[in-house]
């Protein structure tokens, strides 16, 4: 589709008046989606979708539109021209936009992914076979995703990748289950078999009589997946320049009250290690990394094109919510976390987090899946789901005992409208006095 998008862009730009600039963004997806329940197929299907966004700029004004692409150039061109004309007619009705900002230097890039995916049907056969006898529920999502940018100034960018994300749970009874994920670019049956084998081992532990914890403060180990849930909340306005300048960031205490995180905590948006395109929707090229928190102190914000213009800084992100978040590792041995925890709660997953006091970055949420009670370094029983309510200033601050050396690369399973290409690299965290409330 790269060739079609390039030609579509070139021909649309031929029609522009001298004072017009056109920005084009392309999105394409060719994905299989297969839902499973009770280790059988609930729904299986395929999505092929392509869409084009057009932003027309003239005389300091901008108007945008989006349309589906059918894949037939002349037909798509005709509909895009009609839409462009509608934008052209609205521009004079708009005031000048003081925050208008798009790349004027030409930085063209092309990155093609290599298709190393298995036949999806065969991968599903292997999964169902490996999980025979298990109550497995989950989803396979895999295929090609592509993004493109072009403008009338001559810039062209292309990014395509082939990936899969197999996300599942294996249930023992009721809500007692093991959560697993296998995501990547090349399929290895042995990796899958190893994960299913570990599921079977953990299921045996879930058969123990579950513990019900009383509300109170507990020593906990948060797995990278659990920390991912917490950081999704912090990322909701936590690092964006606009939210900082308008005092809406949940990290407001770091700006206004001198609060800090643990000196061992460094957080960055590591664009170079992520899976998203390196170009923004306005044609800017992202830097390799943006340091957000360094040694516990707040450092920089993510600035998209409009905020960058409004506050006079450089664009360093496509949007102001991280898509390639990284927390640096610490000194804990990831293979010995039960021993380090000694006695307390091993939190494999958290769920449905939200702010209970945004000004103090206090987050509530639930434990989920195979959270285990650990005694003297040994997991002894599953724990019934518990609600927590705790501030990040404690979790990653004064009650943080350590982070694991190892980071886990977590590929977002999100697929609202399109498959997500966000990811995060996170360690696990050992935390004292973590508050459980209900």
């Amino acid at each position, binding site marked *: 589709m790269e060739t079609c998008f390039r030609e579509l862009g070139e021909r649309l730009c031929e029609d522009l008046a001298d004072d017009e600039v056109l920005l084009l963004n392309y999105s394409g997806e060719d994905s*299989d989606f297969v839902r499973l329940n009770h280790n059988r*197929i609930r729904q299986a299907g*395929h999505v*092929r979708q392509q869409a084009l966004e057009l932003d027309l700029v003239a005389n300091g004004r901008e108007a945008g539109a989006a349309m589906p692409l059918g*894949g*037939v150039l002349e037909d798509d061109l005709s509909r895009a021209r009609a839409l462009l004309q509608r934008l052209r007619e609205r521009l004079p009705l*708009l005031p000048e936009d003081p925050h208008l900002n798009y790349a004027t230097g030409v930085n063209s890039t092309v990155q093609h992914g290599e298709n190393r995916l298995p036949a999806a*049907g065969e991968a599903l056969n292997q999964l169902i076979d490996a999980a025979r006898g298990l109550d497995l529920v*989950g989803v396979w999502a895999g295929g090609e995703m592509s993004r493109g940018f072009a403008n009338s100034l001559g810039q062209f960018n292309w990014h395509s990748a082939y990936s899969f994300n197999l996300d599942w749970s294996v249930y023992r009874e009721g809500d007692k289950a093991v959560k697993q994920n296998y995501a990547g670019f090349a399929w290895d049956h042995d990796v899958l078999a190893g994960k299913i084998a570990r599921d079977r081992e953990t299921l045996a532990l879930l058969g123990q009589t579950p513990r019900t914890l009383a509300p109170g403060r507990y020593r906990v180990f948060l797995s990278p997946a659990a920390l991912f849930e917490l950081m999704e909340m912090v990322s909701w306005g936590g690092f964006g320049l606009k939210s900082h300048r308008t005092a809406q960031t949940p990290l407001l205490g770091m700006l206004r009250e001198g609060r800090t995180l643990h000196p061992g905590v460094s957080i960055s948006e590591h664009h170079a290690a992520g899976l998203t395109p390196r170009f923004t929707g306005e044609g800017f090229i992202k830097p390799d990394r943006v340091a957000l928190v360094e040694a516990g102190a707040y450092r920089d914000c993510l600035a998209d094109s409009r905020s960058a213009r409004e506050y006079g800084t450089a664009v360093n992100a496509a949007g102001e919510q991280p898509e390639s978040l990284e927390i640096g590792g610490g000194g804990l041995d990831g293979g010995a976390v039960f021993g380090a925890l000694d006695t307390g709660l091993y939190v494999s997953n958290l769920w449905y987090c939200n702010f209970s006091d945004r000004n103090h970055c206090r987050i509530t949420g639930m434990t989920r899946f195979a959270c285990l009670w650990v005694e003297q370094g040994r997991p002894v029983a599953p724990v019934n789901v518990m609600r927590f309510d705790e501030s990040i200033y404690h979790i990653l601050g004064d009650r943080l005992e350590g982070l694991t050396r190892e980071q886990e690369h977590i590929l977002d399973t999100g697929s609202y409208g399109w498959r997500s290409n966000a990811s995060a690299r996170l360690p696990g965290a050992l935390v004292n006095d973590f508050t459980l409330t*209900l």
Partner: protein
Amino acid sequence: MPADWQSVINDFKAVVPAVDFWSLRLVREEAETLCVREGVVQPPSLAQGRGVHISLVDRGGAAWAATSALTREGLRDAVHEALGWLEVSRRHALVAAEHQPRPQRSGRYATHIETPWEAWSLAGKLDLLQDINRALKVDECIVDWQARLSRRQIDVALVTGDGVVIEQAFHHVLPGYAAVANRDAQTQMRSGGGWGSMRQGGLEQLAAFDFPDSARRVAEEAIALVEAPECPDTTADLLLMPDQMMLQIHESIGHPLELDRILGDERNYAGTSFVTPDMFGSYRYGSELLNVTFDPGVAPEMASYAFDDEGTPAERDYLIRDGILLRPLGGATSQARAGMAGVANARASDWNRPAIDRMANLNLEPGTSRLDELVASIGHGVLMATNRSWSIDDSRNKFQFGCELGRLIVDGELQGLVRNPNYRGISATFWRSLAGVGDPDSLEIWGTPSCGKGEPNQMIHVGHASPPCVFRNVEIFGGE
């Protein structure tokens, strides 16, 4: 039916092979969004969507494919993809092919619109949003403020190999505004004018959201909340206004009653349910004041329709009556799997997703108490309005919700504002503490355009109408 759809249908019929059953769902959408933030007109956007969803059932298997390529070649490719998954599905199918729905009746539906979107010019709409911006910026401590107005037109046609044709056309308006006040390290946001919700109809619906008249009040409340004391930590009576009742109904009645959750489909993502099939018909879900309906016929409510996306005719039904659980939220497929009666709630978020069990309009029926009578019934309590935080466990039982605004109630009278009001409880017992339900005059229609669920993920609009309600002895607390 849009003019170009008949050729798509004809092309599809030309390429689909002989199968036991097929259906073709065509979806076309056009949306427009206008926003003025801090007095600056944001670039307005037009968004078009168009695609088809193909479902095939044959010899024990079922599969789907969706494409935005609406040429005969594109449709042929999609059919090829579906046939491939049909083959895999035959070996591993969870749902028996005979349980796949086959619509029996053709029909039409269209939103009633009195004032079309085009009746107001672009300049007129932007002027209105600028006026609201000026009304919101009442003080220097308002640090962010914005007003939005959007609309969405969605046309859907469901055509089946049995000759059924269902055409539905929906039009929604999405207004709203918000003001953010800050002093030092204390920030509070207040929203109004329909922020975070929408209604079915045309621009005439704006007045029902008090849009734009409440703008100044919204800003003044944001400032007052910055100065207000924290909500106390207490166990007391709770008066929830309709714009929070919406969330309470959604999370702790709607989701637990979704039959696909009860059947286990959502256990890897959205979760399971504390409700089990044996509870229907006898389980006391709430006090005798609790009456909840699935009602697709409330014209301005956002999820009104005549047929769901499996082609089942939609009708009003009681899910809970006099506090007793009667019926789940399950569409035709789930009903067949579970052997239970349900409702017409199999819905897809767009052409690129299959139908699953969703809420639609899920309403709490009004009682007999005026709002002032509800307040007067409370000796020690808190009124809470407008949801801003939601969290509940994967069985939809242990919840904690927070609101934008709280107001103390002492000896039956409203007192001052409190900030950061939160409460927590357990669904299975919370509804049994329902002690007062507002009358029809106090009922308001709300809902959310963004209920998330499903694998692959689907975001869909759901409506919730409710009067204000009183709950006894609830755990209430504030911020740090």
